[in-house]
């Protein structure tokens, strides 16, 4: 008998069995039923282990479809994409009733070195005879901006605590495990909404004994997770403790300057009271001063003040925690600077040229001449 990992053994066989994603399943099925060639692709997004791929596989089984699955990070250039999927989007399936394409982890595509990768994907979406499903952890990645408008975004939430526990309980019953209640609670908690990792943990504990005690949990290695910027923002905007806010950015894989822009962008997505907004921005303004002291003096000791003010300072600016879901946005500023990199460079060069001709600084040209003659000069 082949031993299957539990994550596969207990993978949903029908779309209705997918755990904790009722909303996503519903949107997805509606999309799938209405799909015709030329329509948008579906873009599943959410953190890992919440059932994005599972749902596609479940649909395949339910409707007897051939799933052509590929991982976007393996083929990143336009020509590679064309080579691998370009053909099959117009060919009929040999054995099954139909086909669907699953392109996983498109976050990995479209770096600087993969020029044209997204463009090719868009082309494929437009031309495909079969529905295409993409998955991403963060669909708001600016690299995916152009692609986004050709996709229906379907959000996957983290799997709820009780849904996790139910699922783990079910597996315990099927596998004949006896397990302290607290064990399952702890497993659910530490997975922070990632069902796959919870099942993996349970399986590895069960390998040693059919009876699992709370003390066994210590054997599990801590799964060090990189906190996403979204989690950090949530902490900063929801907590009232300065220290918690400060610590939240520690394991975020972005530098302080970039996190600063994320916080700046999202203050008004969370706070609603003018007093809170004014306070929060005042803190950012102070943090900005320290940021520039670091630059001017080349002295990194100021960094701690910058970070404390921009995290803790912004966190304590609110009166009460907002009990609402806030959609945090990617910073406009980074988007803008990326988008206009070339046009700004071009403008700067033209202004430098003009500055020689007109014997004044580019600043003065902007202020004195461009208001009158922008079209003539640039």
């Amino acid at each position, binding site marked *: 008998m082949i031993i299957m990992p539990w994550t596969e053994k207990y993978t949903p066989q029908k779309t209705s069995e997918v755990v904790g994603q009722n909303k996503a399943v519903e949107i997805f099925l509606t999309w799938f039923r209405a799909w015709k060639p030329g329509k948008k692709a579906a873009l599943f997004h959410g953190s890992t282990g919440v059932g994005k791929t599972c749902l596609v596989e479940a649909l395949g089984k339910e409707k007897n479809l051939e799933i052509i699955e590929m991982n976007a990070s393996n083929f990143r250039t336009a020509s590679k994409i064309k080579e691998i999927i370009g053909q099959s989007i117009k060919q009929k399936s040999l054995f099954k009733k139909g086909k669907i394409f699953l392109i996983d982890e498109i976050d990995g595509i479209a770096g600087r070195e993969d020029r044209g990768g997204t463009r090719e994907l868009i082309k494929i979406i437009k031309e495909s005879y079969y529905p295409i499903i993409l998955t991403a952890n963060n669909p708001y990645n600016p690299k995916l901006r152009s692609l986004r408008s050709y996709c229906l975004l379907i959000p996957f939430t983290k799997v709820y605590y009780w849904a996790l526990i139910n699922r783990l309980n079910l597996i315990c019953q099927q596998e004949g495990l006896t397990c302290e209640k607290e064990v399952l609670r702890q497993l659910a908690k530490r997975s922070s909404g990632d069902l796959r990792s919870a099942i993996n943990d349970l399986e590895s504990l069960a390998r040693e004994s059919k009876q699992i005690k709370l003390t066994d949990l210590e054997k599990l290695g801590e799964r060090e997770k990189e906190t996403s910027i979204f989690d950090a923002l949530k902490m900063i905007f929801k907590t009232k403790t300065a220290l918690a806010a400060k610590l939240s950015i520690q394991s975020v894989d972005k530098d302080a300057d970039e996190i600063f822009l994320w916080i700046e962008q999202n203050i*008004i997505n969370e706070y609603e009271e003018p007093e809170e907004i004014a306070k929060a921005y005042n803190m950012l*303004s102070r943090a900005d*001063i320290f940021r520039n002291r670091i630059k001017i003096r080349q002295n990194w000791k100021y960094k701690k003040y910058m970070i404390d003010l921009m995290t803790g300072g912004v966190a304590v600016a609110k009166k009460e925690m907002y009990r609402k879901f806030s959609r945090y946005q990617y910073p406009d500023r980074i988007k803008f600077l990326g988008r206009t990199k070339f046009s700004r460079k071009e403008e700067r060069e033209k202004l*430098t040229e003009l500055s020689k001709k007109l014997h*004044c*600084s580019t600043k003065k040209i902007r202020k*004195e001449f461009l*208001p009158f003659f922008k079209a003539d000069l640039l």
Partner: protein
Amino acid sequence: MPEFEVWAEKYRPRSLKEVINQKHVVERLKAFVKEKNIPHCLFAGRAGIGKTASALALANDLYGKGWKATVLELNASDERGINVVRGKIKDFARTKSISDIRFKLIILDEADALTSDAQQALRRTMENYTRTARFILICNYSSKIIDPIQSRCAVFRFKRLSEKDRKEYIDRVVKGEKLGVDKTGMSALFELSEGDLRRVANLLQASASLGKKITGDIVYDVASRAKPKDVKDMLDLVLKGNFKSAREKLNDMILIQGLAGEDIIKEIHKQIYSLNISEENKIKLIDKTGEYDFRITEGGSALIQLESLLAQFLLFSKK
């Protein structure tokens, strides 16, 4: 298509003889030309009254036709860091002048944009290259130039131009371009240019693009189109409680139009008086504006500081 020609440049004096007024300065400069020797100079005075023009005219009179080869023009507000300035000066001053004048000329415009640290460094550079190069530093306020530099320079204060002086300049352009400016047009030019000849030229040229006959209405129209209404719109938005749109306006002004933070905050300060809020709140806002202006000077980045200032305006918004 012929290349677009900017009148402010076209009617710039080629020789000291053509400089409008500033007689007290011009006479001394002419004497330098005669002696074929000049000291380091510091030109101070408000915008658009002939400082850069006099420096360039001096260079032309001194070196003759090929003056550009012996003159280095630098703009302190564009050159990032004193090291760039020093590097360029060094490269330039290292070689000997090819004309019969022994030294080359370095014109450093907007010198008040240099920090005092940078000015200290500049002072050494000036000393080191005195034998091969002379400096003309140009600034709006001589008080922003450190004493050791001032004491090494002959200081020239450029005067405000009278209405008569400005009329002389306008006539020069009007004649050259065959325009007609009526009385209302003339007084509009006086009023809107605030004594700045560069602005006179720009207003004239922009008005003339609508026709050769220039009236007050046309000048005002052109000036209002060029005047950024954005600041007022931005403040109106934020006082209506619409911070998001106000923030977008700000982003647009700084990131797309490339306006300087100091200019925007200056305009904000001006606008506060005409806002629809109580007198007491106006004063509170002026206090806040001053504080954020200070933070920008302290090295804060314009966008963050102005955005934070806008958030303070939000406190006085009516939803």
